[in-house]
């Protein structure tokens, strides 16, 4: 598949048009994986899965020298994963996630759901146990990771059902989930981190204390970055209902400065807690996110 086609395929505006998360995740992940030049994914089990052309950078230990002797070309062996590591996807379903600007193809929540679907598909494909948790004021849904058949389908179904609502009680939800995550695993937190920048370090610290590897994926709309509005606007806080009427062109500079400071604080908090932080915009390709996951997964061995 051409690379450009894959990029287009992973573009949110393309994927957002697919209603079925199952199809969406399959298209995105399969396309993403087939387009990788360097294999970041070899499987971590012992069961052979397939051959693949060698790409510079692949570990030499996976080269099948017998095949090289017959064909005079390098092929690497790909194994089916046989691990049972848990991957927990936590989605912020607060009302602030239900925002989609004119430049975005979908809302932040929809984007987060697409990412979650892709990660769930990818993780399931390589044998990990995938769980899904969504929260706003409380825990909205919980699909614990397990080996049962149909787990992925259940996750995808839950993603289809979820609606963003009310305010996000991040601390309560995260504390409650951290208590229940007994087994070490990968925690992917998809949120816009609105109003939780100060509590972020404490929340992440609890996961890290339980030896979880964390990926904090901040999903933002471009409008939240640059406040592009030109005319007088009445801004209604999606969670608190607080209204502010202002002239965006007059407050844009101050707003950008405040947002930059806020993002820096979040990034700094994640660094302090050794948490991978990935800020994505609803206009960004999902490939970046999937690559980040794979890097983290590879680092975890």
């Amino acid at each position, binding site marked *: 598949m051409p690379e450009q086609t894959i990029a287009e395929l992973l573009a949110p505006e393309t994927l957002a048009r697919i209603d079925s998360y199952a199809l969406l995740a399959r298209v995105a992940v399969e396309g993403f994986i087939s387009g990788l030049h360097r294999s970041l994914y070899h499987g971590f089990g012992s069961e052979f899965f397939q051959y693949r052309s060698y790409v510079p950078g692949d570990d030499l230990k996976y080269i099948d020298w017998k095949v090289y002797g017959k064909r005079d070309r390098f092929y690497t062996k790909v194994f089916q994963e046989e691990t049972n590591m848990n991957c927990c996807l936590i989605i912020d379903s607060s009302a*602030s996630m239900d925002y989609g600007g004119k430049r975005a193809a979908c809302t932040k929540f929809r984007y987060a759901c697409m990412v979650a679907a892709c990660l769930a598909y990818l993780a399931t494909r390589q044998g990990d146990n995938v769980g899904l948790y969504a929260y706003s004021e409380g825990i909205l849904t919980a699909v614990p990771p397990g080996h049962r058949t149909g787990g992925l389908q259940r996750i995808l179904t839950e993603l289809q059902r979820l609606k963003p609502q009310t305010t996000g009680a991040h601390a309560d939800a995260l504390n409650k989930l951290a208590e229940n995550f007994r087994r070490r695993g990968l925690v992917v937190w998809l949120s816009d981190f*609105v109003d939780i920048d100060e509590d972020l370090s404490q929340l992440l610290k609890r996961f890290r204390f339980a030896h979880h590897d964390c990926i904090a994926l901040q999903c933002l709309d471009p409008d939240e970055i640059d406040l592009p509005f030109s005319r007088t*606007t009445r801004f*209604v806080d999606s969670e608190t209902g607080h209204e*502010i009427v202002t002239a965006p062109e007059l407050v844009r500079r*101050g707003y950008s400065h405040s947002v930059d400071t806020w993002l820096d604080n979040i990034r700094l908090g994640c660094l302090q807690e050794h948490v991978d932080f990935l800020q994505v915009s609803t206009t960004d390709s999902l490939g970046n996110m999937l690559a980040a996951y794979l890097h983290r997964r590879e680092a975890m061995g």
Partner: protein
Amino acid sequence: MLSFTSPGFLFGLTALTVPIALHLMNRAIPLRIVFPSTRFIRRAQLPREGRRQLRDILLLVLRLLLLAAAVLTFARPVWHRALTPPASDAQTATVFLIDVSASLSGAAGTARAQTLVSEKLDALGGQSVGLVLSADGVLADVPVSTDHDEIRRVLSELTPTYVAGDHLSGLRKAAQLLGAAGKRTITVVSDFQQTDWQLARSPELPPNIDITFLDVSGQRTSNAGITRVLVAPLNSETARVVVETRNYGMTPIARPLEVRIGTHSVRASIEVPPLQVRRVALVLPTSPSGRGVASLNGDDDYALDDVYHFWAGVLPPIRVLGVIPGKPEPRKAEELYFFRKALSVQDDGRAFDYAFDTVEAEFFFALDLEATQVLLLLGAAGYFREQEFRLVEHFLREGGAVIVTPGKAAAHQFRGLRQSGLVDAEFVGIAGEHSRDEIYGLGWIKPDSILGSLFEAPEDTDLFLFPIYRYARLRPARQDEVLLRLLDNAPALLESRVGNGRLFTSAFAFHPNWSDLPMTGSFLPLVREMVDSVVPGDYGAQRIDCGQTVELPHTLLGEELPKGGGGDGANTREPGIAMIGSTPHEVNVSRRESIVQKINVVDLQHRLRGSNSSDTPSPRQTTEDSRRINLWPYCASLAALFFLLEMGLGIVFDQRELKGRRQA
């Protein structure tokens, strides 16, 4: 009360919706956006937004006011002051303006006026009522009062006058009696004869005066009157009297006519068809008193025009002033003698005589020529200066006659006349001055001139037979009228018209040194014809209407004229003969009062209410205007003010906003 001269422009007020719509469309309606978080959005700009809204509203209001003021300016609003509130019965006042002109005496008009006004008085009860008797002016007035006794008394003594009606001052007086407050009414009681009211101007009546009319005219089915009497003396003892009678009615009349002069009277019967005029000539012996009366006897609906007073006595003389050089030419007195002799000859057919005065040329400048009709400048003009020639010119323009004959200073005389513009003929010398060997004579008379009609057959007279020894050679201008010419065709007598007067310039003197004309039979008619040329045809008694003002000659100024009834003295209020100075005045009732035709009362009311279409605004219109206040100048000023305010505020607000943006 507000009204608009051009209310159609008020539709322009719909333009007010334009700025409102623009304001609503362009106002900063906040775009409502549900945003993830407002924690980083500052509210620092909110006060500025408030100011912006205030600015927009202020500018909008100013623009609306500007548009409204402009539209109102074109609509030309007018504010009418509130009228005086309706008056109560106690404030209601009425003034009766009763016409007592001569025409009211006909057809029982006076009695009808008394009856109608009395009935009106009864109907008015205790209201305030006033009275004005009006003829050619205000004859009597009773102030407005609730006591009607005085009015009833005046009414009971009401008698018509002999004068024609002119009620302008009466209307003014009535308005004055009414005052300024309350409901006011002028009730005009008249026969509304057209000749009295057709010239009635709209008086300066105060506003809110109602004018009503009470018509007291009756039917004049039978009316005849004497319109004029002409007297022509037949001789010193008898005179021919021509009586002109007019039938104003629609039926023929046959009435006895009596004409009386002094104690003598003559009766005759006269028949006049409807609307026709008949003249009757009677011969009567004259009387020293000169007073005559012609009267139609018998029944008549209007009796005042049945009597006519006329003058049948001696008329005042024609005053002739002879001006002679005096010492330089003492023989000119002889020429004056010839003139005096010719004019003093008694003529039985003539109604007037000549009064002769003499003055020397050097005193001529000091004379008052007002009472003089004829000037004889017998060689005296040769010694006149410029001011004397100006006096002569003024005398001529006023209608006098001047006869000029040459003297020793003929050259100076003709030059002076020429320079004064009195005569255009040029003097070229004296013929026969040094020798009497050559005799001249007249040879031609202008047929269509006053002398031509007198000497229709000059060959039958001695006009062309007398010798002329010397004469002034004149070269007449084209505009000079030559009445007589010599045998050599040289002009002998010129006539010049100056103003209303006539100037006769003779080329020779009426003196034996110059000619033998004074000794001929033609001299007397020639001189008299020239002198009489300035005497008007109706010279003698002046005919005036009762009440008519007589302009007194300056000789009577300052003197109190005797007045008395029956036509004596200078009383012109009643018919008769009034002697003013030496001039008899035939005073009779104005014959315009005999005309039956009435004016259209509706037109008259319309005119009196000041709605006539004269160039000058009527008083009522002026009053109306004074109660109107044109508001459009104020609206225009407001529009200009709002425009300037809008401009100024717009600039200030823009600068502030620009500054605020820079600071932001």
